[in-house]
């Protein structure tokens, strides 16, 4: 079974870490995931930038529209994610609009840049 492990935390606290605290936490996390990676059981991992760096493409009446920030007003759950590599935010918005156009639901797409991204590899 493949699992997606999604991390939710208090942004205000996390982004108030000092460089030392940050390094310590990242080091500890790294120690936990490293054996998994070595065993071929780790897929793509990433660390997201704060939600202030996010943009959301939301379903509109005619065309999808773009708003700053995360999709936070409702209690909708995170149901999946894509990882993409684009040069500009505009490309990411265009891609999200295409997804939005073919998605029948009221899905919003939050575009959030990565700080770090590890493609990883899961042995089949």
């Amino acid at each position, binding site marked *: 079974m493949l699992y997606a492990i999604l991390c939710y935390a208090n942004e205000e606290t996390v*982004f*108030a870490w000092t460089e030392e605290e940050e390094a310590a936490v990242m080091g500890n996390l790294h120690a936990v995931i490293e054996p998994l990676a070595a065993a071929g059981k780790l897929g793509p991992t990433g660390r997201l930038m704060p939600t202030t760096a996010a943009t959301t493409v939301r379903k509109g009446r005619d065309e999808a529209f*773009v708003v700053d920030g995360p999709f936070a007003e409702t209690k909708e759950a995170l149901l999946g994610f894509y990882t993409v590599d684009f040069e500009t935010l505009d490309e990411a918005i265009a891609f999200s609009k295409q997804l939005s156009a073919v998605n029948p639901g009221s899905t919003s797409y939050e575009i959030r840049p990565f700080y770090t991204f590890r493609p990883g590899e899961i042995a089949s």
Partner: protein
Amino acid sequence: MTDIAWIDLALASARPKALGALLRYFRNLDTAEEAFQEACLRAIRTWPEKGPPRDPTAWLIFVGRNSGIDAVRKRAKIQALPDEDQISDREDAESDIADRLDDSHYRDDILRLLFICCHPDLPATQQIALALRIVSGLSVSQIARAFLVSETAMEQRITRAKARVTKAGVPFETPSPQERAERLTIVSTMIYLIFNEGYSQADPKQEAAAFSDEAIRLARLMLHIFPAEPELMGLLSLMLLQISRRQARFSAEGEIVLLEDQDRSLWNQPFINEALALLDKALRHRRPGPYQLQAAIAAVHSRAKRAEDTDWVEIDLLYRALERVQPSPVVTLNRAVVVSKLNGPQEALDLIEQLDEKLDGYFYYHGLRGNLLKQLGRIAPARVAFDRAIALAHSAAEAAHIRRQIDKMQEEAAQPAAKP
């Protein structure tokens, strides 16, 4: 991170929101601060045992509000409210207040808290000290060490500044969109002042260097509550781009390393990436402003893999745009550096000599002027300009940087190529 370290961090990061809400509630800064303090003490007592609450900020507001009411009532000799330890883990009450205190409330609360520190009667350094004390919760001794004054002197300064602010009256009515925009501009200026107070320090371990991190934290907070403000995105982007060079700006001996000489592998890439993402978002709004333009200029440097790859034409265009939206001799002075790269030192010198009257008391003006004269081989007037710069230097590192340029110039002059 230990539990206590985590709690300290959670309390510090909840402070602006919680204190802002308590100030709105009590309409008195001292009462609000006391109530917050009391809530923090209770948090330190109860969180390690019961675990941290789901929403620390809401918990602190709830507990702080009750203890504040309690204190006010005790003073009024009216019966006190039930003990906080009984109500603090009432989940329903906590989520209720969290729901009512949505971000639109927090928004004006935090803005108000920062805005009252920016009282126009207070000199900039006092505004900074007050904001760091009240909003960020730094200790008086920490602030005093950063400003290199005694703790008693800083205590007095902050007390006087607070009295001034209180006397002026705190604006509690909900601001109009126009007032809100004005407050945002004023508060942004102060956040950038706090940043620069820290950034101008050579040693990143110095007390004041922490101010830069604090300013970034405040800008993140502001952007969180005003997510669609392109100038706030620009401000945060600008500060992240500047701080990304923290490890490269000074040599191990504490000497200034100029941008073009910095080891770019020491630049903090995650900060740069975040800054570029923010700038990208900001530019979509097509409402350029001084912070976005300055961030865009810094970003051109950050994108260049090597100093010689710098796109000076782009930087020149951005500086011209900046001169239009925010005309200032300092901006023109900065553009002169670009002009010297594009068209040589003489044209840059012609540009800055028009600024002589306005910038005569400015370190960078004389430093740049000396440098341009040096490039033109005009040793004697260069020396005069450098000496003037040294006299105006803010720090030992700045003075040492100019002295090295003088030494280099004299070494070169001592070995004239004309003498075979």
